[in-house]
């Protein structure tokens, strides 16, 4: 029997981690993620989970400890944000390169300088190419659901890759919402204890992370590319199995009101929710707009996106992190590359928004929808890059 709890995004992730029976958590607190590891450390202290909580001196050490623990066959979780993720950067590649199925909660936050504790996607986008599966949740329920699915995806022998589950700092990490949580037994039946393929074991020594020169390095990287492709199938399987258990349908892409849409917003995370509310109002005025939200950002779900976009004529792609000096920001570049590959002539413009936690309001989104509708009508993109709510 599922029950309803009032949980913040941080608490929802911590609760899911508890139900997933993790063996090791190594983490360092950082705003706005702190509460996530605080709550988990309480669970450990109170004996509610039989896990080792390793207090480390930095995020670099946190991920190092996670890698070591994961190699022994343990189920491992960590969490971070912002500077913490940046400090982990080196170790993120080691986690994916050594095929450690670690799950990490990230409460997305801006990067210094200037120092800022509020939400944007600069942290995860800064580590975009680290070989991790990357998921963005829209609300606390999605954060809870994705954590449980993330362990199953990560630990599948066909995948063996780390997964990050991202929630918008403060907007989700600190907002309490109703979350339908599963019974512990249901989580256990969905996610049995990890069955590692190869483990480090003092009785049967093996070498992990050996030097790999030009004769083999590329093949190892190619295997990671293949594993991310394989993850594609596994994610789909896990989503369907989770749907059977919960009735909640997850996929690579969440689309709203796209059936006959002329124009749409594509964005990640909580902004998609506000965009859906605005799309609903505009629909009541007869404006054909919709919203497409990639749940899974890596591997990038090209086929599902093309399907979701249907016959839309114009797209506003919203990025909450700046790719300085690039033609477009990260999500928009991926969308344009996907449209090119599928030979789709959809007009696209990029909106950079929300840096350092600047709120994107329903009015901002309404204006973006209206701009996209105008482009759908005329076929002319006047501005390829817009900066939402910035004082110039």
């Amino acid at each position, binding site marked *: 029997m599922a029950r309803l709890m009032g949980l913040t995004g941080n608490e929802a992730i911590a609760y899911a981690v508890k139900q997933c029976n993790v063996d090791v958590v190594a983490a360092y607190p950082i705003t706005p993620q702190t509460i996530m590891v605080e709550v988990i450390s309480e669970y450990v202290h109170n004996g509610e989970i039989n896990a080792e909580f390793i207090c480390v001196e930095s995020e670099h050490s946190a991920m190092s400890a996670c890698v070591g623990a994961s190699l022994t066959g343990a189920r491992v979780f960590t969490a971070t944000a912002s500077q913490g993720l940046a400090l982990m950067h080196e170790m993120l590649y080691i986690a994916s390169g050594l095929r450690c199925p670690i799950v990490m909660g990230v409460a997305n936050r801006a990067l210094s300088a200037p120092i800022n504790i509020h939400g944007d996607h600069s942290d995860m986008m800064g580590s975009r190419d680290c070989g991790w599966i990357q998921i963005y949740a829209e609300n606390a329920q999605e954060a809870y659901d994705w954590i449980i699915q993330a362990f199953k995806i990560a630990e599948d022998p066909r995948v063996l890759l780390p997964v990050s589950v991202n929630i918008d700092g403060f*907007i989700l990490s*600190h907002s*309490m*919402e*109703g979350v339908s949580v599963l019974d512990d037994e249901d989580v256990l039946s969905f996610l049995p204890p990890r069955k590692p393929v190869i483990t480090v074991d003092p009785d049967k020594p093996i070498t992990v992370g050996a030097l790999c020169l030009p004769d083999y390095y590329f093949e190892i990287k190619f295997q990671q590319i293949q594993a991310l492709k394989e993850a594609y199938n596994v994610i789909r399987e896990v989503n369907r199995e989770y749907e059977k258990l919960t009735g909640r349908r997850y996929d690579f892409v969440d689309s709203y009101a796209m059936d006959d849409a002329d124009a749409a917003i594509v964005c990640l995370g909580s902004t998609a*929710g*506000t965009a859906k509310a605005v799309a609903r109002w505009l629909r009541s005025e007869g404006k054909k707009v919709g919203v497409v939200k990639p749940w899974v950002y890596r591997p990038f779900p090209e086929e599902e996106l093309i399907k979701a976009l249907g016959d839309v004529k114009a797209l506003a792609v919203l990025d909450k992190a700046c790719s300085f000096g690039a033609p477009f920001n990260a999500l928009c570049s991926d969308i344009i590359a996907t449209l090119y590959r599928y030979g789709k002539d959809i007009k696209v413009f990029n909106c950079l928004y929300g840096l350092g936690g600047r709120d994107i309001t329903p009015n901002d989104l309404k204006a973006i929808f209206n701009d996209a509708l105008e482009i759908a009508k005329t076929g002319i993109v006047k501005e390829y890059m817009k900066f939402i709510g910035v004082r110039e």
Partner: protein
Amino acid sequence: MLTEVRWHGRGGQGIVTVSRLLAYAALLDGKYAQAFPEFGPERRGAPVTGYTRISDEPIVIHSQIYNPHVVVVVDPTLIGNIDVARGLIPGGLIVAHSERSPEEVKKSLGITNAKVYTVNAMRIALDILGRPIYNTAMLGALLKAIPLVSMDSMTKVILERFPGAVGEKNVAVIKRAYEEAVGV
């Protein structure tokens, strides 16, 4: 029907707590709810805000609240010092902690197009709790002014959040504030 509530208080007065207690009660009523603090660092004693959204339908919006339907002023010293009525929708509601009558508070705020309720939350807190902790009293006054959640659910939430005598006393605080709050 979506109702947006803004809470005003000072760091340390339990503004996040009341914003969440109200949301918990709404969830118990079978409604949808969100509660969130003013984002950023907290400083004890500094003016702070908290927010609660309640709706009969799932709440997908995650932007800040700019035009609340209801404002609750938990700290009596804020009136006159900060614009507690900013962004309040026309015909909205202000529930204020004050010794003064709602007419006087309405006049001092200089607003016409809003209902105002007041309650002497400090008096109730001192009488029942013996301590100047008056955030829960404002929940009682709020429910008098607008029945956003049922008293049953509110009571259950309080007893769960504060087990034992503290919970019982806070329920008494809420019920007395409900009786004493007056509006205009």
